[in-house]
């Protein structure tokens, strides 16, 4: 049975509390900061998509220069506070830390980054100053990580930025698409406010491209346009029964948790989650934390090919989610229009596909799971219609770039998930910086 309000307020509070708690004290942060070797041409820095000077910001924590530390981080990554909570650091900076080569725990870079950036956020330190107004204006579509990052760089250069956002809040997937135990809605709001506190950036909420505004209007009214509207639609399973009540899209499931409140989001007794990416993990763990009795994750390949990190998989397993490898959904069965079972094919690995991973092939064997809810997290689809309707060159909906964040349309730039099809927040922040650099080059 699918129902909401399964738990007490205390249980929700416990289940959705911060999964990576911050340092309790300055001394605790210093113990770790002082372990940092201050590597030269540091592997952590090279492994950060935004190239944060990690040794420098950690050194600055040890010298009591927290403002300097936060500035070092934000200079490379204006969403450095959020990234410290949501980045898969085990495969980025912390994964590259040289301590791993000594078989020692890596420096907790994310936790130290959180230490410095949260101080800046909550003390409202204004660490950047806008240049004199340049008399130029740029429109950005989408107030997610790519859009905000681009806007901040442009505004620092004295350019006036207007962001058009279809939702009622900024932050994009940071605000709407990530598990609540990683970032709270309040934090996301604070982070957006902090970015905007620089000045020169206006966000017009509830303004959707193609609905309330057109690309032609933006191109006419602004010196340049940056498209950072992300991806949206969940990939369809294209199997019978997908229309049944109880079949949900992971993104809207997570969106509801983030926007409505824990007790307002219904969840089944027995839930199947399709996919093994970060979003699938976030959906499965949160279904469990909302009170689902059983959660089973199905992935058509094996652990070796899974898109999520081991750390993420561990969260799901520690939450008690069942993991079924080599299983692809075949049909969803229902009764009275409601889901009551999922039929899955047993797969085996065949020849490598375009991604270089061995592709799953059905063995012909099937099994049936009794479930009352199916959450689809098999990836997201780009806004292909929107992209092609506006004459943008694209590859299956993903906007094509001619190098330097430039699209085929004059004065129109793009970056983030709408270009790459969906990567980490930190990748989007870097895309925003690249876009800003290209725009500055274009308009001056």
């Amino acid at each position, binding site marked *: 049975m699918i129902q909401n309000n399964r738990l007490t307020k205390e249980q929700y509070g416990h289940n959705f509390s911060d999964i990576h708690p911050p340092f309790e004290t300055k001394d605790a942060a210093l113990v770790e900061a002082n372990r940092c070797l201050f*590597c*030269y*041409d*540091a*592997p952590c820095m*090279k492994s950060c998509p935004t190239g944060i000077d990690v040794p420098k910001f950690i050194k600055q924590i040890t010298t009591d220069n927290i403002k300097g530390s936060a500035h070092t981080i934000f200079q490379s990554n204006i969403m450095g506070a959020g990234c410290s909570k949501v980045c898969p650091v085990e495969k980025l900076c912390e994964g590259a830390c*040289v301590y791993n080569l000594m078989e020692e725990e890596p420096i907790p870079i994310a936790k130290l980054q959180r230490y410095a950036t949260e101080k800046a956020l909550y003390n409202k330190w204004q660490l950047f100053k806008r240049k004199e107004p340049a008399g130029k204006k740029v429109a950005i579509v989408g107030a997610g990580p790519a859009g905000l990052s681009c806007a901040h760089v442009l505004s620092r250069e004295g350019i006036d930025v207007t962001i058009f956002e279809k939702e009622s809040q900024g932050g994009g997937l940071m605000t709407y698409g990530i598990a609540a135990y990683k970032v709270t809605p309040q934090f996301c709001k604070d982070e957006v406010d902090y970015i905007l506190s620089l000045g020169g950036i206006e966000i017009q909420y509830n303004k959707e491209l193609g609905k309330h505004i057109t690309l032609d209007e933006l191109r006419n009214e602004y010196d340049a346009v940056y498209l950072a509207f992300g991806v949206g639609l969940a990939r369809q399973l294209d199997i019978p029964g997908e229309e049944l009540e109880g079949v949900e899209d992971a993104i809207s499931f997570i969106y509801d948790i983030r926007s409505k409140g824990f007790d307002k989001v219904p969840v089944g007794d027995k839930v199947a989650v399709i996919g093994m990416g970060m979003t699938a993990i976030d959906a499965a763990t949160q279904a469990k934390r909302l009170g689902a009795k059983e959660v089973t994750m199905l992935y058509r390949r094996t652990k070796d090919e899974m898109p999520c990190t081991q750390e993420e998989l561990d969260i799901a397993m520690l939450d008690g989610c069942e993991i079924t490898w080599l299983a692809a959904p075949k049909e969803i069965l229902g009764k009275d229009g409601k889901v009551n079972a999922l039929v899955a094919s047993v797969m085996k690995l065949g020849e490598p596909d375009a991604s270089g991973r061995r592709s799953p092939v059905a063995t012909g064997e099937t099994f049936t799971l009794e479930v009352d809810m199916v959450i689809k997290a098999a990836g997201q689809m780009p806004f292909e219609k929107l992209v092609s309707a506006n004459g943008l060159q694209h590859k299956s909906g993903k906007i094509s770039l001619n190098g330097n964040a430039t699209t085929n349309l004059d004065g129109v730039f793009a970056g983030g998930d709408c270009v790459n099809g969906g990567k980490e927040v930190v990748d989007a922040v870097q895309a925003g910086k690249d876009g800003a650099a290209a725009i500055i080059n274009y308009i001056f």
Partner: protein
Amino acid sequence: MADLSTNFLGIKSPNPYWLASAPPTDKKINVLRAFEAGWGGVVWKTLGSQVKNVSSRYSAVNFNGTRVMGFNNIELISDRPLDINLREIKECLKEFPDRAMIVSLMADNDRKSWHELIKKVEDTGAHGLELNFGCPHGMTERGMGAAVGQDPEIARMVVEWVMEAATIPVITKLTPNVHSVVPTGKAVVEAGTNALSLINTIQSVTGIDLDTFVPNPYVAGKSVFGGYCGPAVKPIALKFLATISQNETTRKVPISGIGGISTWKDAAEFMLLGSTSVQVCTAAMKHGFRIIEDLCEGLSNWMDEKGFATIYDFIGKSVPTLTHWEDLDINYHHIAKIDQDKCIHCGLCYIACEDTSHQAINLEYGKPYNTYTVKDAECVGCNLCQLMCPVTGCITMEEHRVAPEYINWKDWQAKGLPLNDH
């Protein structure tokens, strides 16, 4: 199991570790706790004229998250009544007759005061006296402490007074607040002191509070120069000690080494440079008296490994290896080698050499890990990279003699061999 027992001018102690004259040796309660913990002896905190102390008294230098790399005090000599100190010394001697009891003294600057003080102290049954010619603060302004130790002739005069009265061994403690400890050391040995101890604390300002702008330690909005000690001063102490061990006059008397000794390794180093006993204070103030256990066990295990049955087998052993620069072998050369299996690619060797030394390390770019190798022809063998490397044994210095024969700088110059070849 090596024998750690020490005989210092007839003053016997079960091990060479004495607590230095300082707050840990100011009262019976502390000294008994130290003896119970296993300390070989104590130098009772300096007795002399009555003084009044201030609050606060200590400050420290921390480094990279480690507390008390250096320690600083502005405390004076014992501020307790003399008769109480004398009574407690006697009581401690009675309870632990097998431990060394030396009493530090700093009398007013006249013969009579010294004679009276020595008589009273000897009456306790103490085994030896240590003359405090080193206290760098508070007492110097009254013509005592370092004011005596900094002037060889005054020091000689005071030691002569002391030797007229003393019937037990006299150790003279030297101040490091001089360009060389040898002149005063020589003067007091010539005046008859039975032994030397060094170093006392080094005048210092440990730091300034960046909010109040007042240096520490803080006393009602002001501060004064204090006496610096702890691990930070060890290298300076070893250097002063070596000069005393090298001088033909001062090396005739036994030495009690002091200055930043925190571990058995430190103690072994002081002894290798000529100390018979060693004195500890800051390490005990940081960790308590329990550190004596490893001080003894570590030294004993090392002695066993080296085949030293008693401490007299290695005291002074390193003194002959300290030579003059112009006697060093110019043909000796070694080159750094990086063990690629141990390397963690931190780049610390590279940046140290590239920015501040001889550009002798090659960087081959990798993502995320660069590969670092030594350019043998550019390496001058300075050790910098090895010192900066965080992995023990990753960078080794391999010997590549320029030529087999020994040649020093003077001969090199005399033969007109090429200079500035690097």
